[in-house]
């Protein structure tokens, strides 16, 4: 415990250096702007800024991204409450009661509760992150390639199940990502795969143009599809920001519940910040003495989900730091950033680079504090960003993507990849595919391949030996249950319905 406190203090000492404070500030401001703008989510912003983090050290890049992620969660709530526009998916639930509160003249209270809730959630999730990561990392040091392969498979399968939408489409995306990851020289034999004689492809398809194309360019193409619409901006006076004593009393328990729920859900693969808001909202509604108020401006309906989505961000860092496996697309981009800096996240990273780990943890806390202090007084400034015309904003984003990709390798092939994957992302989204699993699989792909080939070599090609190890078996059982349970549940529901219909005499007995 003493060692943890000392490490954390050391992390704070580094994170409080002016340069890191500056990165945290830039990250939170950028994140808030991204959260305010509908369409461009934290994922897109992180992908767009990926190349620019190469100019920073690894800790600086991580601090910037943590700021963006937290800031986006907060920024999204601002437009949800004031304008009924969810800046991104995790803020959809906040619209329900947040906007109703704004209509009743309580927008300021909703914004304050959301900011304080986000801060409390951030704090709780960082404490949870510290505890769980260290515990999990210690266990993970004993894992071998079969365990890492099983964790990777389990993560991808759970992602498919929890992301929602068509399972088949999600599987296609994962397999496409895996296929892209196999391009380039084989790491064991040095044989080129799918390079077609193009020398630049021997290094593999770079993660950067793919991510920036699929999220950056594709977002722009999706945004310009429709004619421009500038939202009339609503503002809030500083005096209106203070909630009443009753509102505080009702909000605090919801904030704590949301924080704990959010952190736990953040550990699970999938779009955890989004799922956590829905779960928290349902939970608050069930626990409320006045469930009828929900949908009409219940403050718990803002406090719970807003805390949950922030706590889920902290939770999502756990598998990345402890196991080196990203369970969410945003974490895949964080992993990509670390890899671009020559670092491999996982249990060893905490041991070999403790400074980096503790600095990031400390800066998360600082970032949360910055959000609380800056965002409430500046709420009107951020809302005015919605007035920037789309016809100026979109070319700027494209330009950032183009320069961003070019600056890394000065490669024309990378620029072509950016355009191609921009179109691919746009086309796939247009027919209902979710492209995030593709990026996740592309990042995890090489790790899965390495661990599978190592596992087969270790076990002498014995598949049973790979599967029947205790942790692996448990994980494969989870994978099996993930698919079996919904089918069983569906058939139980169907038979219940049939029985009920028979009792009511609608369908005659055979």
């Amino acid at each position: 415990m003493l060692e943890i406190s000392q490490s954390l203090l050391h992390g704070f000492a580094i994170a409080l250096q002016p340069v890191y404070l500056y990165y945290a500030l830039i990250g939170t401001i950028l994140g808030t702007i991204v959260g305010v703008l509908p369409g461009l989510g934290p994922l897109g912003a992180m992908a767009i800024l990926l190349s620019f983090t190469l100019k920073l050290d690894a800790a600086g890049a991580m601090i910037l991204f943590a700021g963006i992620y937290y800031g986006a969660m907060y920024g999204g709530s601002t437009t949800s409450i004031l304008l009924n526009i969810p800046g991104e998916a995790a803020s959809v639930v906040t619209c329900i009661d947040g906007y109703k509160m704004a209509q009743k003249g309580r927008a300021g209270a909703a914004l304050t509760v959301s900011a304080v809730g986000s801060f409390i959630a951030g704090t709780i999730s960082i404490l949870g992150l510290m505890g769980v990561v260290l515990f999990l990392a210690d266990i993970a040091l004993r894992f071998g390639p079969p365990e890492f392969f099983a964790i990777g498979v389990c993560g991808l399968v759970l992602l498919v199940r929890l992301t929602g939408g068509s399972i088949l489409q999600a599987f296609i995306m994962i397999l496409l990502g895996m296929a892209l990851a196999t391009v380039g020289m084989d790491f064991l034999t040095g044989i080129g795969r799918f390079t077609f004689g193009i020398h630049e492809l021997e290094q593999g398809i770079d993660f950067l143009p793919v991510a920036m194309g699929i999220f950056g360019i594709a977002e722009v193409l999706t945004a310009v599809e429709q004619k421009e619409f500038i939202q009339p901006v609503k503002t809030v006076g500083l005096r209106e920001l203070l909630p009443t004593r009753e509102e505080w009393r009702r909000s605090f328990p919801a904030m704590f519940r949301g924080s704990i729920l959010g952190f736990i859900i953040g550990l699970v693969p999938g779009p955890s910040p989004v799922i956590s808001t829905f779960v928290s909202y349902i939970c608050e509604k069930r626990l409320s003495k006045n469930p009828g108020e929900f949908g009409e401006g219940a403050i718990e309906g803002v406090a719970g989900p807003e805390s949950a989505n922030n706590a889920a961000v902290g939770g999502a860092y756990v598998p990345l730091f402890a196991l080196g496996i990203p369970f969410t697309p945003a974490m895949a981009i964080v992993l990509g950033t670390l890899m671009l800096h020559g670092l491999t996240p996982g249990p060893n990273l905490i041991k070999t680079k403790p400074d980096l780990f503790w600095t990031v943890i400390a800066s998360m806390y600082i970032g949360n504090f910055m959000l609380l202090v800056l965002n409430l007084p500046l709420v009107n400034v951020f809302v005015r960003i919605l007035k920037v015309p789309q016809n100026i904003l979109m070319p700027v984003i494209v330009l950032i993507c183009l320069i961003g990709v070019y600056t890394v390798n000065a490669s024309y092939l990378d620029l072509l990849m950016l355009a191609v994957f921009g179109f691919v992302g746009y086309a796939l989204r247009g027919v209902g595919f979710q492209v995030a699993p593709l990026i996740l699989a592309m990042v995890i792909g090489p790790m899965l391949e390495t661990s599978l080939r190592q596992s087969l070599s270790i076990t002498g090609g014995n598949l049973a030996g790979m599967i029947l190890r205790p942790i692996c078996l448990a994980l494969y059982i989870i994978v099996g249950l993930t698919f079996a349970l919904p089918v069983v549940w569906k058939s139980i529901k169907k038979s219940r319905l049939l029985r009920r219909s028979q009792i009511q005499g609608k369908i005659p007995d055979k």
Partner: protein
Amino acid sequence: MERDNRRNEKITAFVLFGFALFYFLSSWRMKMGSPRNPGPGLIPLITGSLLLLCTAAYLIRVLRPKSGGRKEEKAPPRGEKNYGAIFGILGCTLAYPFLLEYGKFIASTFAVVYVMLVLLKPSRSLLSFFLALGMAVGSFVIFSFLLGVALPSGFLEDLLFRIGG
């Protein structure tokens, strides 16, 4: 709109299936190795086979006439699409690498940004001209002067360097 979506779905399904088939056949030619000592072709073959199966299932699903109860993730209706802007921006991103090679940074960035601005707001071409010029010069100053990024330089860029000292 519904018909457009169906057509796009079919095109996507065919392209995905075509890619899967190509990937599978290419991976087939690679060395599989043995279970004890897996070769470079093992993972591509597994991935290719699964991808081929999944894309075939998707193709069948898309080609099958729709039944009322089928649940599928659908893109939301988007109204009249601005195809000019979509393909224009895409064309700009595709053309940029080639322009950059011959026109160097400022001229090619100006050209690409100007086209995008005009495509998105055709009524303000003069304003777009100055905005594009500002963005091209501004981005060169930010990335080259302030961040020290090596960008393709020609006459204009050298001139800016001389002015900037």
